[in-house]
């Protein structure tokens, strides 16, 4: 398939953009990465995602697909001859979808909330939520991996991609707020998994460096800082 058949519109700091890129890498599909300029949205982005105007967008044979996890499922279904990202068993597949939805709808918002300006009490409450979530995910890893390296078993799968894409921001949040979120004593499964995930061929090149993310976050904070009252 010609390289220009597949395009990903995105930006390097976005965990959501990582997801389709990891999926395409796992399927060994060549694609063109079109980096959006921070602070502005390209005409192509506005045209391909008029509803949300957000990245990532996958453009395949001129057809746009939006929403990162929906894109990952699309990639899995179109390039079916490559290694499968979702389990073949309907129940395991449903569990994978459940955990990915949990990660996006419940867990990550708590992580992101820690970085927002707030009092110590608010932050402490969010940290509790993050830890509770990690405990659930630690347990989920046990059940999904069945003793293997990833949530998906021997190879990276849907839940690995969903959770793993947040590892960069998780580490950056730890650094910026001087907290430890992913802890060997509390989450030994996840710590081991995180190392394996980040060092995987399909992930390494698209996972942003923690320091770069910290710099980026500082830049965002400065840019959106409210004027002193």
């Amino acid at each position: 398939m010609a390289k220009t058949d597949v395009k990903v519109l995105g930006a390097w700091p976005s965990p959501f953009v990582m997801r389709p890129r990891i999926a395409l890498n796992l399927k060994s599909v060549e694609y063109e990465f079109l980096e959006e300029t921070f602070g502005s949205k390209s005409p192509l982005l506005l045209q391909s995602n008029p509803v949300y105007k957000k990245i990532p967008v996958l453009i395949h044979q001129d057809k746009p697909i939006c929403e990162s996890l929906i894109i990952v499922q699309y990639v899995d279904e179109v390039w079916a001859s490559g290694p499968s990202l979702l389990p073949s068993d309907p129940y395991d597949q449903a569990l994978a979808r459940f955990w990915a939805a949990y990660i996006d709808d419940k867990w990550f918002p708590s992580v992101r909330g820690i970085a927002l300006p707030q009092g110590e009490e608010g932050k402490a409450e969010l940290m509790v939520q993050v830890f509770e979530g990690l405990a659930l995910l630690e347990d989920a890893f046990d059940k999904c991996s069945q003793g293997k390296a990833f949530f998906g078993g021997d190879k990276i799968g849907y839940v690995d991609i969903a959770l793993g894409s947040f590892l960069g921001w998780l580490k950056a949040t730890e650094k910026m707020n001087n907290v430890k979120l992913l802890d060997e004593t509390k989450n030994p499964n996840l710590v081991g998994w995180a190392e394996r995930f980040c060092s995987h061929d399909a992930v390494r090149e698209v996972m942003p460096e923690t320091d770069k993310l910290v710099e980026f976050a500082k830049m965002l904070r400065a840019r959106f800082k409210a004027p002193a009252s």
Partner: protein
Amino acid sequence: MAEDKVQLLGYWGSPFALRVKWALKLKGIQYEYLEEDLPNKSPMLLELNPVLKKVPVLVHNGKPLAESLVIIEYIDETWTHNPLMPKDPYDRAKARFWAKFADEKCVPATMSSFTKSGEEKEKAEKEARENFKTLESALEGKPFFGGEGIGFLDIAIGWLGIWARLVEEIAEVTLIADDYMPVLSKWFKDFLELPTIKEALPPRDKLLVHNKGFREMLMGGST
């Protein structure tokens, strides 16, 4: 299929349980319905959905699943006759996209127009209307989102035809404006008139009372 045991934990007033009921009915699946006495969650519910502690929960041969849209896709994958999801990957992506849009955009705005007042309410009402209008474009000139017949997206969104209208009545707002979105308005009517769909609907007067009470509680009992 040999001795399949299917149970659904639900709540009569839950649109999310209704979505799953519709999917089960469309597939002709025999199931045992277990009504939860919300807010007194049963030990069974807490055991089967320890993460979110919510209905609906589908239990198939002892294995529990939560999250209505996840459940519906599971039903579709397991009982493959009368398919609900489209076959083509691009169409599947579109169906999932619009179901997510409805849940993430139409629903919160509808809820806000239901529970807020003054300027916030007006803003939410406008936002909800615009989001419904956007949804209309997904029909793409077909009678149903599933094409000639109903499918995944119809049952994912159809409940709003009841609940949004209840919000309109109780909170005195306009969300599904017939003249602004005639095609969507017609689709809601046609969908809800289908026998399989209509039979599963909870009684409207009961829903009205229930949601009026719900609103009072959320608004802190203000008149």
